């Protein structure tokens, strides 16, 4: 890294964050990834590209999203002051669209005529299908059969938006397998296809690029909190859910060098890390290579990838973005896990107290806030990323609560 006293200058030119990241892809894809890197670096340096992204974020997505003081939850918890970054109010109901706007404009710039993407909860699939409708590009979404089953509303939404949803029947039939299938599609359709990855993982430059497009979240928080709390006030703690880690990276990145700001990433603990049925790659995994990058992975002794488990389809992935792996190892960020049960409780509390149905992903982050806030003084400011709305999850939640709807 050029400057050893900074956390935000990564990755290196070869896509490394410490030992993590990299470009572990088949030769067929290598020229495409190099081309993408070149195109992205050029776009990044081009102020007009930035302006165009900003224009769509403002007028189409509805940014900036509010920073909301949780006025009933805060006294309920009786400790720290809790703010929600309301990214669930974005068009399409989650943070995923921030990245999709950026990448679709890049794909257009590169002259690509067909878009593919993977999706877990369906939020990234919906966001991708949305921008493809807007920019009139054919769109194929790969989604595991298990996820299709538990995210029917999003499947229907994608179809309405004109996307083709391809069910993935291989492996564990969830997000990891959808990503394998998308990579197989890309290897096959190299000429015209742009692979719009939805998280801060995959081969370089995806982790950097997706992080950059999501950093609007943290940038806004910085400005908004100063307006609300005084000119030099930074948050004390940031909390975000981590599957691949795009909403967390987007919130954390602008604060990496504000070392007094605590960063907490919340992994999905499923039925508990000790049970083996979880998606906590940092807590329960070890470094390995999958989907183009080195990162922490759930795997057995022989390097075979294990199935992840989480009630939240969006967190159900056996890996994590390489920058998170790096922030974990160097200690800049702390990573904890929250179980399905804790997330469900947080979901219900937030719904009844604040009138906000959180997606099951940020419900994990909220469960961590519920744990720590009561122990902190009222002068302590926590900002939690409410990265998605829970409407898509009502069937899953109802089932978990034994209610049939």
């Amino acid at each position, binding site marked *: 890294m050029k400057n050893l006293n900074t956390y935000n200058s990564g990755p290196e030119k070869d896509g490394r964050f410490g030992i993590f990241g990299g470009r572990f892809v088949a030769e067929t894809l290598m020229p495409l990834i190099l081309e993408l890197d070149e195109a992205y670096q050029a776009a990044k340096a081009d102020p007009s590209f930035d302006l165009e992204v900003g224009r769509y974020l403002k007028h189409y997505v509805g940014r900036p999203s509010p920073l909301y003081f949780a006025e009933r939850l805060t006294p309920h918890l009786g400790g720290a002051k809790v703010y929600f970054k309301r990214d669930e109010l974005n068009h399409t109901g989650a943070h995923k669209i921030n990245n999709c706007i950026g990448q679709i404009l890049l794909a257009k710039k590169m002259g690509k005529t067909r878009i593919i993407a993977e999706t877990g909860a369906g939020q990234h699939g919906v966001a991708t299908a949305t921008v493809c409708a807007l920019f009139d590009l054919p769109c194929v979404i790969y989604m595991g059969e298990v996820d299709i089953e538990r995210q029917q509303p999003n499947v229907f939404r994608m179809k309405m938006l004109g996307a083709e949803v391809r069910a993935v029947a291989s492996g564990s039939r969830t997000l990891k397998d959808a990503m394998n299938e998308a990579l197989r599609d890309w290897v096959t359709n190299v000429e015209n296809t742009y692979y719009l990855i939805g998280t801060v993982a995959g081969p370089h430059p995806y982790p950097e690029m997706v992080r950059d497009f999501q950093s609007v979240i943290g940038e806004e928080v910085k400005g908004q909190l100063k307006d609300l709390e005084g000119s030099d006030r930074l948050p004390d703690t940031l909390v975000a859910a981590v599957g691949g880690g795009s909403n967390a990276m987007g919130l954390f990145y602008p604060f990496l060098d504000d070392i007094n700001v605590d960063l907490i990433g919340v992994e999905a603990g499923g039925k508990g890390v000790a049970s083996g049925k979880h998606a906590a790659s940092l807590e329960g995994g070890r470094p390995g290579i999958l989907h183009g990058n080195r990162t922490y992975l759930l795997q057995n002794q022989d390097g*075979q990838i294990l199935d992840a488990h989480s009630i939240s389809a969006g967190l159900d992935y056996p890996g994590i973005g390489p920058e998170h792996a790096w922030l974990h190892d160097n200690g800049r960020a702390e990573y904890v896990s929250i179980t399905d049960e804790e997330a469900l409780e947080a979901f219900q509390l937030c719904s009844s107290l604040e009138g906000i149905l959180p997606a099951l992903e940020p419900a994990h982050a909220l469960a961590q806030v519920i744990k720590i806030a009561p122990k902190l003084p009222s002068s302590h400011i926590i900002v939690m990323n409410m990265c998605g709305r829970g409407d898509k999850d009502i069937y899953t939640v109802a089932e978990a609560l034994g209610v049939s709807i």
Partner: protein
Amino acid sequence: MSDSSLRDDRLASRFDLLRRESRGGLVTFITAGDPDFARSCRIMKGLPGVGADLIELGMPFTDPMADGPSIQASALRALKGGQTMVSTLSMVEEFRTEDMETPVILMGYYNPIYAYGVARFLEDAKASGVDGLIVVDLPPEEDAELCMPALEAGVHFVRLVTPTTNASRLPTVLKNTTGFLYYVSITGITGTGTASNDEVKGALQFLRPHTDLPIAVGFGIKTPEQAADVARYADAAVVGSALVEKIAESERIGGDSVEAALMFVKDLSSGVRAARSGAKR
């Protein structure tokens, strides 16, 4: 590579032999442990006898992102049967008790090797009688990971060249490639489309002036006729998915998958061996 290691370089000797016999070779791919360890060993041991010139032994992985359904399924069958890296290496060791000439290339993905430990893997692979490696998700940009240590340990690192490898990139790909070059004849995953003869011929014409390495061609070769067509121009034809599919098919109908696999290889070999009779290169 030093002169002493070249003397016992099974890959170089095999391609020399093929040149002397003026024919293209047959490279067969099977997944180690498919359909189970014992039968996989018997298939491997039987391959040279039915005309396989080189053996690619797949190291099974749960997430083979460059492979089609046939090879994915074979890896899962092997893993379900308890195949590990240790048992894959012991297959090679056992094979070497009977065959000291046929080159064996391990093919797969990096994570199982990384989990085993690169240094320990190279030492054990070399000791077992492995001649080379093809690791799909290690492009030249990641050579420091395994390629350089492998070459230092005297294990060949065979690289894939694809239709997307253009003239400006080719030198990067060729730089640390040894043993032979594997031309992936289609953009796609294993066992799907098949390249036309003209496409294969064109690719070889493009590659030959840049390298003295033998060139094997694979991906999408399914029949003895197709193998023969490729072996007419290339130094070897690789058959993987179609062979693995014979094993799966035989398992489905309760047949003898060892015999089914070896009979198919015999047909492939007849095709390859007849390819250049009358049509000298």
